[in-house]
């Protein structure tokens, strides 16, 4: 090993940037779709209707019991069977992560909703608010604040987990660094660099989460 070569990092930046965009895009997409689908799952589980809550419960528990890498592989293999044509590694990853994260988000949301005192629900109902109105105006707004730091922590984990798309050959941030390292024959530099990059991004986000959990409750 002949010294640490910074030039390789600089030269591979555009390529790594492409990988970062994919990882960030995947995280953003899975967060938004996962939250939407996760909210539906949480509401289904809390609905009290067996034919809504049972499928949701089975789905959530199944997703949470299977390693993400396996889900990624399964979706990659199963999706083309459903759509009838090849889906591509990138698109398959988007669908998989949204479906997988929904299960985790739904559990966070469910806990937050269950944390709202019963009296608040009764007061809303006693005023004549319908169930969906009660959720929208009373339960939702109160549940979201204490959940924000936990949700953000989950997003950080999600960002790290995007590296698992290597299993189906999609090019995320880690994969881009690995390829650059091979091309320039400088794997050590690239792994050190990419590790630092993950650290900076995730540590920054977790600081943000902590700031939220401290500051938000004073009001």
């Amino acid at each position, binding site marked *: 090993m002949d010294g640490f070569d910074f030039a390789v990092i600089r030269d591979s930046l555009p390529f790594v940037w492409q990988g970062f965009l994919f990882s960030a895009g995947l995280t953003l997409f899975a967060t938004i779709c996962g939250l939407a689908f996760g909210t539906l799952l949480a509401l289904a589980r809390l609905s009290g209707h067996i034919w809504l809550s049972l499928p949701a419960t089975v789905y959530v528990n199944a997703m949470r019991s299977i390693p993400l890498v396996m889900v990624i592989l399964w979706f990659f293999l199963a999706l083309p069977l459903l759509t009838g044509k090849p889906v591509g590694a990138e698109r398959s990853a988007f669908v998989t992560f949204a479906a997988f994260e929904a299960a985790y988000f739904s559990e966070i949301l469910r806990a937050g909703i269950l944390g709202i005192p019963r009296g608040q629900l*009764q*007061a809303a*109902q*006693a*005023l*004549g608010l319908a169930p969906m109105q009660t959720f929208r105006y009373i339960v939702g707004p109160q549940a979201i604040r204490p959940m924000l730091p936990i949700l953000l922590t989950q997003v950080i984990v999600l960002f790290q987990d995007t590296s698992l798309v290597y299993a189906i050959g999609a090019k995320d941030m880690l994969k881009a660094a690995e390829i650059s390292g091979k091309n320039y024959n400088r794997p050590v530099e690239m792994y050190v660099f990419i590790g630092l990059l993950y650290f900076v991004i995730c540590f920054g986000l977790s600081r943000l989460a902590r700031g939220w959990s401290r500051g938000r409750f004073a009001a």
Partner: protein
Amino acid sequence: MIEIRKLSKWYGDTAVLRDCDLSIRKGEVVVVCGPSGSGKSTLLQCINGLEPFQQGDVVVDGIHVARAGRALPRLRARLGMVFQRFELFPHLDVMDNLCLAQRRVLGRTQGASEDKARVLLDRVGLSEHAGKYPAQLSGGQQQRVAIARALCMDPICMLFDEPTSALDPEMIGEVLEVMNQLAADGMTMVVVTHEMGFAHRIAHRVVFMDGGRILEDTETAAFFSAPQTERARLFLSRILSH
């Protein structure tokens, strides 16, 4: 206005209400008392359908509560409910607490809701607090806001579940005063309370419950001078000796 016939409710095997009969006429003030766990809150919550029941009928203004279905929210909106722990919405300021259901349930405009809210805040003596959040108010003030919130819906009847038992003694008076005023204005009221002085002054009838049964349903003066059942006598002597 409210007719309860042979009402029974169980949690699993344990009966919390047994064969309760009660009728409340327009303009009547009925106080419900009894030991802890006797089913007073449950009775109130059966009246506005917050709790389901297995047997009997509850009829409010001609509508069967158990069969109201989609009409239940509208029916609830016409019964004002006041809780022991106030249950103001902590994320909304006082004005929004008062306007939310007016707008979303009754379909009133923001302007009409605010006008109504101001009238009622004035009535409970809290006009200057419209912009505050519940956490910035004392317990007595919060409970008065809660009463105003219920009154904003133009209820045909008010249900109170121990409205003063979570309050410091010096704040009980201000809440009872508002309730006094309501009764004087002819509001139909069902009040679960241990404030026997208050009951004596404003109730037309006193209902005594124990073990899920209505043991007494007596005109107020008669209840306090000569309760019919031994258990009511004991309850009274214990509560009055405080």
